């Protein structure tokens, strides 16, 4: 039976960055025998709304981070009631700013939004050597690798990473997404990336579309 008030409380707790409230609401959902998958979907809707509000500059990074924490707390409660075989596996997402580029604020926002949406994010940092991306893909076997570049001169390095992944025989094992101030969809197509994120929200939406 659908319990609107429990689901509503869960949605509101995540939206209002109430970490403790989200955990309590999730427990209330369990106690009221709310379908845990439906509750998880409600929690995801709240995070989606958080993304929209962030895009509209109505809430900011600290709020997004606290909402993500609330989502994690609620998920931990709800997932216990979802059979293992029905649980979506967290997709691993390696992210970093390419070699020669020290700009990592945008990359940090994308990593935060991915984390909020339930991706298992491994952040390699900034000015990451091409060989490090290759090593990380080999070591972690991620579903995604995200390459950030703010400057036109470093955007070309995104292509170099894709080539290095090809040379290492790893290109087909991972979806490569690119983004950053100096990049465009055209650039992403040119260098052979699988996806391009116009901004953090777009990056998350596109990554989810691959799952």
């Amino acid at each position, binding site marked *: 039976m659908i319990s609107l008030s429990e689901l509503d409380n869960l949605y509101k707790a995540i939206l209002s960055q109430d970490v403790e409230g989200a955990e309590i609401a999730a427990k209330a959902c369990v106690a009221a025998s709310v379908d845990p998958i439906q509750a998880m979907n409600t929690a995801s809707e709240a995070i989606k709304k958080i993304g929209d509000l962030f895009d509209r500059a109505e809430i*900011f990074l600290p709020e997004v981070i606290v909402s993500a924490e609330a989502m994690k707390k609620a998920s931990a409660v709800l997932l216990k009631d979802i059979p293992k075989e029905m649980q979506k596996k967290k997709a691993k997402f390696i992210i970093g700013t390419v070699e020669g580029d020290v700009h990592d604020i945008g990359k940090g926002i994308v990593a935060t939004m991915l984390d909020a949406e339930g991706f298992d994010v491994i952040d390699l940092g900034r000015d990451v050597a091409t060989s490090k991306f290759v090593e990380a893909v080999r070591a972690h076997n991620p579903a995604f690798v995200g390459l950030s570049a703010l400057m036109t001169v470093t955007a070309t390095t995104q292509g170099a990473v894709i080539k290095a992944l090809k040379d290492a025989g790893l290109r087909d094992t991972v979806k490569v997404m690119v983004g950053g101030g100096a990049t465009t969809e055209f650039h992403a197509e040119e260098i052979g990336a699988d996806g391009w994120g116009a901004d953090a929200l777009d990056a998350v939406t596109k990554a989810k579309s691959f799952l």
Partner: protein
Amino acid sequence: MTEHTTRMGDGRVVRMSSEKIRAELETGTKEAADKAKIPELNGNELETLYEIVTNPSRIVGVEMGREAVMSADAGGFSLFMDSGSSGLGLPIERSLALGAITEKVLGIDIIQESEPDASFKAMKPISPYLMVVCQNILQSTISPLMHISMPNLGYFYKPDGPWDEPIGLLRDGKFDAAKASMEGAVQQCTESIVYVATHLATIGIDGINIDTIGAAGDPDFYSALLATEAIKKQNPELSIEFGMATESVHGFHAQLKYNGTRLAGLWPHQQVKLAEKAGADIFGPVINTKSQNSFSWNLARAVTFTKQCVKDSSIPVHVNMGMGVGGVPMFETPPVDAVTRANKAMIEVAGVDGV
């Protein structure tokens, strides 16, 4: 159906019908109005934009008598530098390129001197050198001379500076530590800006262009406000251009306030009021181009934000018009058809004082 040659926001050439261009202009202005809670462009203004976009000439210009002040963001660099993908790499002495050639050959109204690492932190130890360069330029030019550098708050975080990187702290849930780190960086950044400005004021430079403000979020914006205030107290005659990096101020600290106004989430028409309060003489709004949308959509959007900024401002507005801003496509060498159209629209519809 009449079709026109126009562009996408990444510079790609496309053919678009009159109806489609009109629809793009309408959705572009609506998007800006909805986000910043400001009025949309009216029917006449949209019609003017339509005429500008569909003008068959390759380049367009403003009507006589509506010329605007033009500065070039140290554009003289393009003459002697060569990044591999842009710049001419000509063997010209740099102060000549940045000064006399920019003024007398290119006809730029405000000369802007800068260094390749255009951050105030990096400028601080070379202030005596900057003073010599600027003095040389002043002796060979008539136009106002500004030094242009960025607050670049990121330079004050580890590994480049002493303060812990705040985004990482935020992601670890260490909110107080992140805020303390940002506040510490603000103080040092402000000191750097004031130091450079004060030294350049001694040789009679006309102004300082604090550029890409807000690139590192609300603390970056805060630092520029504090620096502007401090510079104007010490040197009231030194002009300050307050040039932005993004259309809205990202909230990384999210609680910083100036004069009682929360900085996070401010749009250009709100940013300019704080810049004025701090003592800025010129405001440079930035509207980011969305490369996946059309040139028409971006132009209407950019003009909508900028028009409101001009309306609310009591200081001159010199809008940023370059790669990926002000409706100009996101392309390293922006196409001249789009650049001239965007500039004409900003002057004739948004009413900016300079570009």
